[in-house]
């Protein structure tokens, strides 16, 4: 349904294809380094933090209130941060580039 590229901390792009579910689950399935998904995707751990490419931010949209609050756990968060367990895979996300937060 969508090809999504994760840029890991070592600056290595990993492009994977997802059909459904959350972007975090897709990353874990493909062993993308730096996305742990410790809480299983319930927005409780902030270990699935990604930075969305600025020009693509509208594709994924704003974080929810809870997610924004959780992002404050990470000093590295910025206005293009998302917890990717809160992003569902849809065809619109095809070509999305996400940088895994440090």
């Amino acid at each position, binding site marked *: 349904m969508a090809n999504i590229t994760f840029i890991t901390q070592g600056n290595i792009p990993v492009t994977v294809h997802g059909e459904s579910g959350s972007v975090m689950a897709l990353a*874990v399935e493909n062993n993308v380094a730096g996305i742990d998904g410790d809480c299983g*995707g*319930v*927005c409780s751990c902030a270990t699935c933090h990604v930075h969305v490419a600025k020009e693509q931010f509208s594709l994924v949209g704003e974080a929810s*209130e809870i*997610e924004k609050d959780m992002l404050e*756990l990470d000093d590295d968060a910025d206005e293009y941060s998302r917890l990717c367990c809160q992003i569902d895979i849809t065809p619109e996300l095809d070509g999305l580039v996400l940088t895994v937060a440090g």
Partner: protein
Amino acid sequence: MMNAQPPKETCIIVGASHGGVNLAFALRKEGYSGRIQLLDTDKRVPYHRPPLSKKHLISDQPAGQLLKPLQAYEKADIDLQLGVTVVDVNPSEKSVTLDDGTSHVYTQLVLATGAQPIIPPISGVDSAAHLYTLRTAEDAQAIAEAFNACEKKRVVVIGGGYVGLEAAASLQLCGAKVTVLERESRLLARVTAPDMSDYFYRLHQENGVAVFNAKNVSEIQTHNNENLVCCSDGSQYPADIIVVGVGVRVNTHLAEKAGLKLDNGIAVDGNNQTSDDSIYAIGDCCAQFNTHYQRWLRLESVQNALEQAKVVAAVICAKTPKMNAIPWFWSDQYAVKLQMVGLSQGYNKVVVRHERVNPESFSVWYFNDDELLSVDAVNHAKAYVLGTKLIAQRQRVDIDKLQDSSLALNSALLVQI
């Protein structure tokens, strides 16, 4: 033979759940090049346990979400063996014996054996119909099947802890008639303050679950697949399905055989090393001195298992582990999201803060005099996040301002300089 290669190091990990699986992958991340043997009695590819009592309980796939996809183990050269039980440890020979009779030698052994549910010695418990504990995917599946097969769907949950309450909420949402029987005078008595107990009591009542405190289940009578759960005060509750969630017993059997020091779990030092230099223990099965709270603790949480897995991986790879001594935990019931950070034990002051802007959000702040010990946040990630930071930094909190919910909750408000 000349120039023989030295035998490869081998790390054997007993238990492939949150602790064991994360350790195996963390070892590779830290550069461990030896063999990794990851063993579990459970036949299923390791999965997340928290969803078992939550949304997955009555789903088509109660086995739920995998911790890692199967291919990831192969790719990381982790020898995952499922459906095998380690039955013996021989520390002098550095070997373990499996139930298939084979022996395996280790350089490092890690016990990530977790815990198992207690079945209380209630009269009739062994012959009760459709009585389940809830720890494994198999348990969840059995509950789901019994639930789908039964008509009246009367469920009695024995025990009002997190697992029991989450199961009650999940089953109620699926149309069961649920009764929770708790022996203590309030719910979650071991883990939270009375304010939170009251909140969850009301929450379940409002959602149609019958909750009874101070109920000591003394007998289960079973006729024709129907149970009658009898309490010592004479009250009786009919049940087609009984879910028992009264706590766990630590799996220390192997540690005992290895002669390791035990103390409410397998006793480990700050590096999660047991009393034997080559044996480590992580997760629910071990007790460790917590440097932040200056107390021995045995924690039952995903975060604790993960944190300790990272520590052991670093130690085995001769690196300096990063320690995080502030425990955190979450629980989901109905549409309510509870997040907790820190430990409230020893508190002498509680501040309950209801947010004016959002009445669904509130937080409970526990203090020992001036020191913030822990925060329970209901639908309130901000309070949880602030609490996490303030506790870790041992920041003084302005309690007067915290109590004043006309002021917005943020760190500028709380930090007392």
